[in-house]
């Protein structure tokens, strides 16, 4: 294994650990969004607060986006990103292979 490969593996393991540990340590926590925690804070400071504008999609649907659909759209977002990165990375890796092949 090259030094880079090792560094990358260690780094990825560290990232996964940082993300996973809270889940196991804080068993009672809800893990809600901190964006929502922000709106709770606004209410605490301001008293009752009614947002003066509802998200376009929510008003079109006449309610909140169903949780499952929301996670679908989040996945689509991740998918688009991961796809683009993987596509170009794949090309780069393959190109390097070809270049080194030509040399010999």
């Amino acid at each position: 294994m090259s030094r880079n490969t090792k560094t990358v593996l260690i780094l990825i393991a560290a990232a996964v650990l940082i993300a996973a540990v809270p889940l196991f340590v804080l068993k009672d926590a809800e893990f809600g969004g901190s964006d929502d925690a922000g709106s709770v804070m606004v209410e605490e400071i301001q008293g009752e607060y009614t947002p003066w504008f509802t998200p376009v999609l929510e008003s079109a649907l006449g309610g909140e986006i169903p949780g499952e659909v929301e996670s679908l759209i989040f996945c689509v977002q991740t998918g688009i990103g991961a796809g683009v990165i993987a596509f170009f990375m794949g090309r780069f890796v393959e190109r390097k292979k070809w270049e080194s092949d030509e040399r010999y």
Partner: protein
Amino acid sequence: MTKKEKILLKASAAFAALFAVAPAANAMHIMEGYLPAGYCVAWGLVCLPFLIAGFISLRNKVKENRRSMTLIAMSGAFIFVISSLKIPSATGSCSHMTGTGLGAILFGPSAVGILGIIVLIFQAVLLAHGGLTTLGANTFSMAVAGPLVSFGIYKLCGKLKANRRVSVFLAAFMGDLFTYCVTSLQLALAYPSESGGVMASAVKFLGVFAPTQLPLAVIEGILTVVLVIGLESYAGPELNNTGFLSGREKEAR
């Protein structure tokens, strides 16, 4: 930059400065409808010059060398991935990262503005995450302020001759944290607390965002370094075009 573009840039900068001077009345993703209309407009105007500068800089980069398109696309895709991952944090709530550090290091802070706003619009329209009315404020914190800090830190580390991976990590880490600091301030300006004013409010909002964001900022730093290592090993020619490898790398060789 053509003459017309320069004029446009200057005009919007002046316009934004006006708003910044006028008693700064006025927030990562601030929820739709949670900022008073005046603040929404003001933050939008403040972002405008950065976005125009970003558009011009991106266009010039592509014109100069069509190959940079691939890395621009990858930086944008990185923001897409990173900002869609909601990660549990030590405080028992979830938050997500910004991913703007990579683009800021490779292409400068203004170019990332454009990539960031694409993601923000995607999330605001399709996910009801963030919002169209708060788009200006969110763009300022995530796509302008954060990248500016990332870029600054990276350049500073370069001056100090710090290890490149360490500087990439620090840049992404600080950029992410700073984004949330700006959000806290933006919310605080709009909702000063009755007893302590803006500052007391800012501390409160920071209290919500900062501890949650800290471990996530570390993860963002790590992931950015991983991708940079990957690019270093396989995308040398592209990195040379952006000027990322020039300078220090050459000295090292």
